[in-house]
């Protein structure tokens, strides 16, 4: 049995039995982890108010060899996410960010880059960065860190610089020049302003990328491009994506 302390971002909190909760959290060194917070549902629990989704915390847990589920010993709040969770859109976005890590981060594998991406995105959102841009930034970088969707500098098929028209083929995980990817039906012609936004996202931090105003049309198309690549990569869509669209449609 070992006792580990680490900075973590809480991804999910789920009730377990009558008294306990299961907490899924992301750490830099140990990747995605799950632990039981004993007594967390009871009124005077030492975890009360600490187990907040998307909060940054300092977490200490016991781990036993060969067991997936650790046991939380203590959780101390470092940065709550309340400001993001005060309105419906913020709550939906938060669930969407967490869903990416729940699906794409690995258990027990160092995940420094995933951690830094989620941490920086939350930090910027808590400082009121544009949420639409933050979501697109996060989607693109999640895919890039997962090894798909490289920056659009040259065409991966022919090696020529991507200066002219650019296409996302129907089952593609990357953008191609129109000569290489333009034939197949169902492909998506990527607009120059979308490409500019994508390059800006690849080059700058989120707060810096947000200093330049972005055309809504570019944000919408980038959302579509990222969603297609994510579906091709995961072979399905994240559950939160459809739910959020259905929720917005009902308002």
């Amino acid at each position, binding site marked *: 049995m070992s006792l580990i302390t680490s900075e973590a971002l809480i991804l*999910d*909190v789920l*009730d*377990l*039995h*009558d008294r306990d909760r299961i907490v899924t959290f992301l750490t830099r060194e140990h990747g995605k982890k799950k632990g039981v917070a004993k007594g967390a*549902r*009871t*009124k005077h629990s030492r975890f*009360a*108010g*600490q*187990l*907040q*989704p998307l909060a940054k915390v300092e977490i200490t847990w016991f781990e036993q060899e060969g067991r997936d589920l650790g046991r939380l010993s203590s959780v101390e709040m470092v940065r709550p996410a*309340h400001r993001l*969770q005060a*309105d*419906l859109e913020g*709550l*939906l976005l*938060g*669930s*969407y960010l*967490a*869903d990416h890590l*729940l699906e794409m981060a690995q258990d027990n594998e160092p995940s420094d880059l995933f951690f830094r991406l989620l941490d920086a995105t939350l930090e910027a959102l808590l400082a009121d960065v544009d949420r639409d841009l933050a979501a697109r930034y996060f989607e693109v970088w999640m895919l890039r860190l997962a090894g798909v969707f490289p920056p659009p500098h040259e065409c991966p098929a022919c090696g020529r610089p991507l200066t002219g028209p650019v296409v996302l083929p129907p089952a593609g995980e990357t953008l191609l020049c129109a000569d290489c990817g333009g034939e197949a039906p169902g492909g998506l012609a990527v607009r120059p302003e979308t490409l500019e936004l994508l390059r800006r996202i690849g080059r700058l931090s989120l707060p810096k990328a947000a200093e330049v105003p972005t055309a809504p049309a570019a944000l919408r198309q980038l959302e579509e491009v990222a969603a297609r690549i994510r579906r091709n990569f995961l072979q399905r869509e*994240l*559950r*939160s994506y*459809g*739910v*959020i669209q*259905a*929720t917005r449609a*009902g*308002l």
Partner: protein
Amino acid sequence: MSDPLARLIGELARLPGIGPKTATRLAHHLLKVAPAEAQALASAVLEVKEKLFHCSACNAITPVDPCRWCTDERRDRARICVVEEPFNIEPVERTGEYHGLYHVLLGALSPHRGIGPDRLAIPALLERLAGIEEVIVATNPNVEGEATALYLARVLKPRGLKVTRLAFGMPVGGDIEYTDEVTLGRSLAGRREM
């Protein structure tokens, strides 16, 4: 025919919060109890399934449909309290502060768990709004309950309804099930318009 013990363990392990280890321990315990005790458990399970169901109007668990809250003429029919689960009704009743109707959503909004408004009993709520002046949203004070409350406010307020939320004097991440009736009563009395 499969091994009866393995079958019992398999059935127990399907219950929420019961893993294979606990299921095995429970099954071995049941092997040891007197036949009458095992019979009592089995018939209690069957009776619940035969005699209790969800109220067709509000989704509360009830032996008669509609349930006693929906049919009680003394209750305040201008107010409806929205909760996540049937077992959230009893704590609100215990406060003695509330005398209106109830509506059980059977869940809370949670995108990453795949639970959207279409999975909740929201259309049934919208059909019950005739004569209602105030909708009191008593979902849990956690992110799912909060998202549900904010969604309901967005849907209900344009219909001219007063939508209120319990004023919780407890940390976010709490649970209505685990709130004592004094605190819950105070949260009800101090409910705020959304």
